[in-house]
């Protein structure tokens, strides 16, 4: 029992997933939509349970797993996100056609991997969790077996994912080879005692970061993002955009600030440039997109750039800003994806013309997309604005010390203005243009509740920011102690 205590959430999720799989094998579910809603409710129950778990200061499972406030913050966020993704999948289940139950199971298993990834403080556990997530997504992305776009998405994700996993393992082997440790804390201790200039160790660190950039779609691991977001089924895209990125950023924070902090001379200057290039690439690439899912793919790259900004700020405010940002980004994005789930059809694509005049067909869906886009653009009073504000203030705090941060802040500001163009264009399409097919869209009860909840959270978190800010600051207290 003591062994299972730290991983109780993951264990329960895994039991839920495997139980569903076995039940499907014994007697296939007929009402897969309702199954999705039930699973979403079950995950919400797990979220409620997770709220009573106390953060622990010690490490578990042979010093590979932590359960502090930071890990709990991300676990709760991921559980909430998973629940919303399951609702999205349920709404989209008619388009998924076959194997819907298995799709749900894969979502749950990927979620298990994400929960473990947030707590990983050991390279081996990192790799195992990473693979669990990636392999689940391999299958999810190519769900539409007869749709060439989906197959292409799955293949691209497979190849890029395999490449990056290989790079990560290669880097881990260098780090293990030079320090003899796989635990983050032990690696940090070894880095401190080691005199600087160990080439093999530096190569190892760089390789791991290179492989991890795939996870958060930062340059240079960003190439797969637009194609996969566009081709994969909507539920997989939404989970990629929110859950995968959340887990990836949690891992990067733990790795960089608990494991590789003494080596910041290696990764800090590089990350500044990566952040700048990433957000420029994402924002400029999204400008000309006509497919909403592809647009969200490019914007996702841009948001990775903003998140990296919080890392290079190198202070407590920056880390708290990242947590706030990723939390509000997940909820805002899910509002958009939930609305999209009721609108797009498999094979019809998510072209913007499908959303023209959406407000005439369903005011709620139109509001969902509009609020989502505006929050991602960072316009007050929505939560995206405060996230960006926190990032800007955090970066400029050290700006007087390092001028590159000023350039980065200016680039980010330009990026925000550029991004407003494509986000506002979606809002215009939804509200101003005339629909090609004016039949009203029916919105089920569960979707209505979920979408309204997301919209309200996005608006309220932007006005009453204090609860989330305080939670973020508490979560990073341990991580930022050395900064």
């Amino acid at each position: 029992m003591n062994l299972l205590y730290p991983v109780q959430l993951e264990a329960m999720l895994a039991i839920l997933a495997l139980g569903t799989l076995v039940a499907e094998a014994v007697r296939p579910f007929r009402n897969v939509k309702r199954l999705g809603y039930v699973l979403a409710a079950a995950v919400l129950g797990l979220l409620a349970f997770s709220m009573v778990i106390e953060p622990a200061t010690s490490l578990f499972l042979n010093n590979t797993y932590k359960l502090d406030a930071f890990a709990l913050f991300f676990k709760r966020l991921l559980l909430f996100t998973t629940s919303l993704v399951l609702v999205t999948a349920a709404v989209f289940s008619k388009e998924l056609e076959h194997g819907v139950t298995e799709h749900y199971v894969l979502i749950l298993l990927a979620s298990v991997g994400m929960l473990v990834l947030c707590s990983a403080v050991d390279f081996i556990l990192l790799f195992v969790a990473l693979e669990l997530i990636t392999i689940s997504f391999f299958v999810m992305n190519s769900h539409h077996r007869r749709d060439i776009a989906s197959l292409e998405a799955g293949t691209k994700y497979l190849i890029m994912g395999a490449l990056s996993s290989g790079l990560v393992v290669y880097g881990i082997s260098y780090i293990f080879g030079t320090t003899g440790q796989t635990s983050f804390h032990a690696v940090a201790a070894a880095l401190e005692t080691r005199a600087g200039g160990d080439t093999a160790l530096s190569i190892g660190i760089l390789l791991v970061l290179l492989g991890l950039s795939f996870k958060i779609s930062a340059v240079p691991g960003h190439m797969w993002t637009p194609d996969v977001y566009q081709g994969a089924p909507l539920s997989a895209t939404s989970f990629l955009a929110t859950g995968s990125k959340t887990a990836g950023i949690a891992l990067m924070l733990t790795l960089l600030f608990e494991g590789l902090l003494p080596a910041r001379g290696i990764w800090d200057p590089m990350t500044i440039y990566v952040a700048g290039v990433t957000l420029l690439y994402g924002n400029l690439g999204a400008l000309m997109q006509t497919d909403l899912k592809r647009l969200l793919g490019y914007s996702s790259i841009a948001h990775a750039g903003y998140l990296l900004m919080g890392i290079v700020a190198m202070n407590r405010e920056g880390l708290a800003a990242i947590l706030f940002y990723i939390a509000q980004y997940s909820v805002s994005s899910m509002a958009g994806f939930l609305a999209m789930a009721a609108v797009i059809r498999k094979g019809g694509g998510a072209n913007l013309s499908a959303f023209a005049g959406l407000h005439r067909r369903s005011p709620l869906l139109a509001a969902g997309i509009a609020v989502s886009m505006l929050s991602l653009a960072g316009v007050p009073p929505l939560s995206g604005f405060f996230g960006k504000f926190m990032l800007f203030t955090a970066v400029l705090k050290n700006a007087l010390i390092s001028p590159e941060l000023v350039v980065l802040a200016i680039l980010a500001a330009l990026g925000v203005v550029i991004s407003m163009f494509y986000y506002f264009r979606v809002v215009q399409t939804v509200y101003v243009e005339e629909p090609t097919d004016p039949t009203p869209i029916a919105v089920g009860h569960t979707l209505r509740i979920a979408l309204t909840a997301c919209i309200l959270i996005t608006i309220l978190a932007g006005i009453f920011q204090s609860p989330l800010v305080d939670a973020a600051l508490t979560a990073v207290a341990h991580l930022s102690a050395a900064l």
Partner: protein
Amino acid sequence: MNDILSILLLAPLAACGLIILLPETRVREIRAAAIASALVPAFCSLLLYGVALAAGDGFRFAMDIPWVPAWGLSLHLCVDAFSLPMLLLTSVVGLAAMLASAQPDRPKAYYLLLTVVLGTSLAAFVSRNLFFFYFFCEVTTIPKFLLTSIWGHLPEGKYRTTPKFAAMQVTLFIAFGAMTVLLAMSLLYYVGGQTMDLDTLRDQVAVTPLSLGVQQWIFGALLVGFGIWSSMWPFHTWSPLTYATMPAPAAMLFAGVAKNFGVYALLRIGLDVLPQGAQSFAQPLAVIATINIIYGGFVAMRQADWNYIIAYSSISHMGYLLLALAAAMSPGGAGAASAVVFFMVAHGLIVALFFLLSDCLQKTAGSRFVGDLGGLARTMPFLGVAFAVAVIAGSGLPGFANFVAEVMVFIVSWSEGSVAFRVGAIAAVWGVVMTATYLFRALRSTFHGEARGERAPSPPPGLSVRLAILVLVLSSVAAGLWPRLLTDLNYSEPVTAQQKAVGP
């Protein structure tokens, strides 16, 4: 006093909630809620005004609600001599705008957006915390975009562009200014000791002023960003098309009220926190203001669309305002602050009146292009008189607030003494002639002389529109005949910090 301020700020919020709950069919109730959302703040501002006059020296109501203590942000609201006239302006223009809105389609969303703009503008002017000032100003972005995209209208065949383009243009342009401001403010946050509160910053700067280089960088960036918001040359290009496209009540609110955000912020921050930085920019700003006056005036003379004439006239008059601001920023020029505030009120009232009348013209005569119209005074006497009054007021003739405001600008600019300011003062006087020229010429072509084009008789403006016009005209007359109404407020307390920082 705190209760009055709370009611003033919460009334628009309550009205928004009411409008959201009302069904789309109950248009009269929605409209009543919107009008109440402007009437209550107007009443409250008058109450505050009475209390302020009675309090005499050093009146200053402040309210501080901690909002995000971990980030040093608190909702610090303060009514003093600078913000009280702006509250009055905002509520009067808001009242006129709500009265003048007539049967839009999708009334619920329309009135909701207008009420949001009104409420957030009121909150912006009383914000003493830079973050919240920025927040409240930027909340107008979404309503501005939606109002221009959905209800925006360009006359048929006269323009090669669409409301969608106009909406995108203004949003991106203003966003660019907003990002510049955000960067400058974030830098100020840190060099000022991790606070966004103007009072705290002012007290700290009085003890240890920031270094000149830092001040210049921050104020320069703020000048560019806020200048974009206030249509300072060369960042003025967004305004004509925007005001030509927006529905008239939105144009009234945005041109009359929101344009003043930039100058108001520069005045506050420049006087309180960055006095030396502001001083370095006083002369260049005077030059730019002169260009605004002359350029805006000359371009206005070439316009055929009444909305464009008004928009360029507004750009020209922003030059006067920037000239007064520059005078307030220069050493020993703190007395010009009252001129800045007076001009903001005067100009806001008249530009709102003009956009309202232009909209009436469009509705009754079918066109707002001077070339299509003529001799309308015979068939539309009310509109003819109203336009004549507006033109007289806008040209700065005595009896209206603009005259007093412009005289104050001439005086403060000339008494500043340096070449740039004296040239600016001369240009400002010359600007009166230019304004009179294009306004009276347009008036004559529209209402007097030969009638051009056939048109069917159309109904005169309704009661609520007439009420709106009356409200604006009376306010302008009141400020114009009794300037002491505004100048008697104690302006010296807010400027004390600048005098302290600059030294004897």
